[in-house]
């Protein structure tokens, strides 16, 4: 069949692939022995995972006093890291749900890995609220509506912290279902290509007897569409609720109505930053440059620029509203952010999130992989500092000057954060080795199309 190549819109999948090529390319890591690079990366990740185990054990064994939190700054790196990871977890479902509703076909090469990233990031995020409760063994009764032995007290449904529990667990489980459901046809492909017994068994087990019947595909597409439809408001709700942890309090600097949209934009921004970090490397190492093309990277860079600018506007709006409100506490909170003892954190946040992404106005910056990788790291750093600025600089100088304090993390807090990196990358390396990183069945359906 004829195919006309447009100069304006190159094909989504390069290299004239046939559907056989797609299966061969994407099953390659699963069907071959692990490469040296994979072993090295996986080994390093395991070391950091061990660090996570060690520091969490130390926190639980000794008590939460091993962290340097104090009465004034009662949330520090723990909640900073929590919000940081949850934010990263937003790109996956955004890519697969919202871009599916908008019929953006370029999502198909990247949605699988972005969803995997979502799930692993939310796992990392969950570590912090769980362990910051201190006595984790009774934490179950504090977060879940379970009848208990303390006089049958229930959880408080008026509290955003509890909404958070519901939002994050729902987000995690629904994303997991969405991810798994999307993977079933591909697992079946691996099953039917399998030469070894164990592969036949395990992929057979998880493929749930999928045979690609037209009737199943029909239902499958309806289910995907509905899941996308409900996941879209879900993504928006999750970070909205996370932002309410802050916005419903009366702490100057937190008590603002702009928080929900601003947090959502920030989450998409940081999520796409992390997707870029992972995919720029993965496409090179795993040789997927025909699938994750420069066009894909460029599209993501544009999203990063848009959301970065949105976040920047939110920063400026916050500042303006504080000045305009006439509330001295609010005004001081913002002056203190920019010029107080943590000014360097504020400066990092502003330059990484508002200024840096503006380079994406230039095509070269959007289409050069090494530069994109560098930018994605800057975005990650900037978004971590955003959360640090919001949490620590608002808390450390509240209403009463006699309560003012400073906060520096302890080695345990730093260790836990590095440890969650280990957890994240361990999961990602396992995913890259044992599951198809690109959605084969969807990519096969767009080989001929040029959108």
């Amino acid at each position, binding site marked *: 069949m004829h195919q006309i190549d447009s100069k304006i819109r190159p094909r989504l999948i390069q290299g004239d692939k046939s559907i056989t090529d797609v299966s061969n390319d994407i099953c390659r890591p699963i069907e071959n022995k692990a490469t040296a690079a994979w072993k090295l990366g996986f080994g390093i990740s395991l070391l950091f995972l061990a660090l996570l185990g060690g520091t969490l054990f130390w926190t639980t064994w000794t008590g939460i006093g091993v962290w340097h939190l104090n009465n004034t700054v009662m949330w520090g790196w723990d909640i900073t890291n929590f919000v940081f990871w949850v934010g990263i977890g937003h790109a996956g479902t955004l890519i697969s749900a919202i871009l599916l509703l908008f019929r953006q076909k370029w999502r198909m090469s990247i949605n699988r890995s972005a969803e995997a990233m979502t799930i692993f990031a939310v796992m990392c995020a969950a570590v912090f609220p769980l362990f910051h409760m201190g006595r984790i063994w009774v934490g179950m009764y504090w977060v879940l509506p379970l009848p208990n032995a303390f006089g049958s007290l229930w959880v408080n449904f008026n509290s955003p912290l509890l909404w958070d529990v519901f939002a994050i667990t729902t987000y995690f489980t629904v994303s997991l279902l969405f991810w798994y459901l999307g993977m079933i046809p591909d697992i079946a492909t691996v099953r039917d290509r399998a030469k070894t017994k164990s592969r036949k068994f395990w992929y057979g087990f998880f493929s*749930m007897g999928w045979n690609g019947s*037209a009737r199943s595909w029909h239902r499958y597409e309806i289910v995907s569409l509905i899941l996308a439809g409900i996941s879209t408001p879900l993504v928006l709700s999750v970070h909205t609720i996370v932002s309410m942890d802050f916005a419903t309090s009366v702490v100057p600097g937190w008590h603002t109505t702009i928080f929900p949209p601003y947090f959502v934009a920030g989450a998409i921004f940081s999520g796409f930053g992390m997707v870029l970090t992972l995919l720029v490397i993965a496409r090179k190492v795993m040789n997927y440059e025909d699938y994750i093309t420069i066009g894909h990277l460029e599209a993501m860079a544009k999203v990063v620029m848009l959301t970065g600018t949105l976040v920047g506007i939110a920063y400026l709006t916050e500042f303006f509203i504080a000045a305009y409100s006439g509330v001295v506490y609010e005004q001081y909170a913002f002056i203190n952010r920019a010029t107080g003892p943590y000014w360097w954190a504020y400066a990092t946040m502003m330059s990484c999130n508002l200024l840096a992404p503006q380079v994406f106005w230039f095509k070269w910056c959007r289409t050069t992989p090494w530069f994109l990788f560098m930018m994605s790291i800057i975005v990650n750093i900037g978004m971590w500092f955003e959360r640090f600025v919001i949490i620590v600089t608002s808390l450390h100088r509240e209403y009463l000057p006699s309560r003012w304090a400073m906060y520096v993390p302890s080695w345990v807090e730093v260790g836990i954060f590095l440890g969650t990196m280990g957890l994240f990358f361990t999961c990602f390396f396992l995913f890259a080795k044992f599951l198809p990183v690109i959605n084969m069945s969807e990519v096969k*359906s767009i080989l001929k199309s040029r959108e």
Partner: protein
Amino acid sequence: MSLKVLYAIYEEGDDLLHAVETVRGKGMDVVDCYTPYPVHGLDNVMGIKRSRLPIAAFCFAMLGLASAISLQYFTMGYDWPMIIGGKPYSGLPSWIPVCFELSILFTAYGMGITFFIKSRMLHGMEADIKDIRQTDNRLVMAIDVSDTDDTSGLESLLKETKATEIKKPYQETVEAVKTETPKVPVEKVKAAPVKKAAPKTKAKSSSVASKKSSEITEEEKGEKINLLLGKIGKASGSVNDDLKLVKGIGPVFERNLNSIGIRSFEQISKMDSETIKLVEEITRYFPGKIERENWIEQALELMKK
């Protein structure tokens, strides 16, 4: 339910789509197709009834909402009422987030489980595979041939639709073949005794079929042509562009287009998704090919020359 089923194997989704249409047009029953990727429009040409899963989704959402409200009412307003921040015991507005999240949770899992049950999927289940490549790089069409013994006619018809392999028919138990209401034209073909005659002599059957199809659409066809030309305009008498210059249009299809009054690039360039559909219906052309090959853009280019 026991059926005798013949399997035809294809390499391209478009070929399969076209083949299903052809086979169903002859009044044969396509039991099912097995494809490594979703072929868009296949459910339509196979006449699969739209699934009612969305209704199930709504029910699960309501169930989730009801559980969320009763959970919060029971704990906060009934079992251990407490004044928190001076708010009423049953403060509906602050229950909204949990209501929303639980509705989503119930919908997603309810839908997922219903989908697995309806598609008969379970962990560790043996897959019902017709051809081992059907999840990898081949598309399989299963045709019900219980009524005929001689399938040579059908086989050569399938060869014409670019089937790369044909697996000889054999007796098989097929579970739960739903009998959908076939599309109107198919039913008409079925009513005439074409079905059994079709596979016997190929030449005869194809001529019968083409006659049939033109008979069916004769009046509708006229209407559709009028509608079409009303939208894209009539070519003025002298104009007679060489439509073959558009990549994808061959001499045969050019004749077809001319016969329904399309003679200029200008007309093609004015097409939109609706008129393209009309053209496809009138000429029984490959669905989606016109858009895929971008005839409109090509026609615009050619008009400039």
